[in-house]
């Protein structure tokens, strides 16, 4: 069935672009290696946790930065966490932006922090969008592969008789 071939090609092209454009790095590949028949949803689970965790961190960061007297140590603690989690799932651009944000924290540069936080958010929502697209692509592919195999099996058994 041609549609499977087409979808596969689209998926591979999209997935490759994510690495090429630096949205994802090697660590995302490592995550995928941890998925198998005994843990078939591992990647989606971890990424879902990442989304929840990140959105909470972004809120905490926004709150900390908007204080009358900004506690840069607190801000740094949140960024450190965000850098860690994005690094753990392979969200490369988010991680790099967190590294930049930490520099501004070290310098106690509030203006720099504010601007950089916007960029962190931007990168986060970008990669979130990309990953959701990727997962939709996978399930679409799976559905079509399943129906393709059903078709094959049905066809095979019909011919045997």
């Amino acid at each position, binding site marked *: 069935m041609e549609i499977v071939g087409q979808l596969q090609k689209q998926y591979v092209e999209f997935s490759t672009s994510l690495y090429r454009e630096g949205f994802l790095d090697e*660590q995302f590949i*490592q*995550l995928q*290696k*941890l998925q198998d028949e005994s*843990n078939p949803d*591992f990647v989606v*689970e*971890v990424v879902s*946790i*990442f989304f929840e*965790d990140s959105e909470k961190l972004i809120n905490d960061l926004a709150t900390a930065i908007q204080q009358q007297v900004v506690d840069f140590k607190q801000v740094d603690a949140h960024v*450190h*966490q965000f*850098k*860690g*989690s994005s*690094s*753990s*799932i*392979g969200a490369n651009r988010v991680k790099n932006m967190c590294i930049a944000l930490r520099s501004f924290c070290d310098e106690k540069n509030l203006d720099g922090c504010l601007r950089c936080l916007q960029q962190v958010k931007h990168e986060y929502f970008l990669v979130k969008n990309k990953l959701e697209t990727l997962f939709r692509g996978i399930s679409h592919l799976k559905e079509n592969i399943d129906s393709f195999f059903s078709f094959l099996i049905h066809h095979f058994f019909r011919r045997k008789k």
Partner: protein
Amino acid sequence: MSGGVTTEMKFHVLAVDDSIIDRKLIERLLKTSSYQVTVMESGVKALEYLGLLDDEKSNTKSHSNSTTWNQNEIQVNMIITDYCMPGITGYDLLRKIKESTVLKDIPVVIMSSENVPSRINSCLEHGAEDFFLKPVQQSDVNKLRPHLMREKEKGKENQFNSINKRKPIEECLSPDRTRIRFNNDLVA
């Protein structure tokens, strides 16, 4: 026993990390290597699990009747912990374990997202077996097995040496240490 009861023969690793994502990752990595895994979200919870919280006041007392033996159903073969954690850090945890007469021989591995040589050296000097940079990979986890096998060897030696002496302790330890465990069940 032929055939092997795999659950009791698995190495039990205690993983400690305040990051929910890293806990999920390390758990999966360890389970892929067929280890039994317990994850804790803080140093305090880990100490509690290991029965070390009460020991702060009684470090010099003999432990034969202490709370640690209430924990005799919990057998931990290795501890892998994040360095940067709020409250009790991985470093603090390492120190406490190495200062404990009961737990000091358990191999401890430290994980950190930051490559700070002085930090790494300090951990190794205070008894850490190894130091992994995050994100931790399968190749890092594969390095754990020799440390675990070595401790198992030592455990057998100690058991042979003390077999006629400390009977109460032997009763507690025997489920884990009476049989030779060089068997294919433990090979990854």
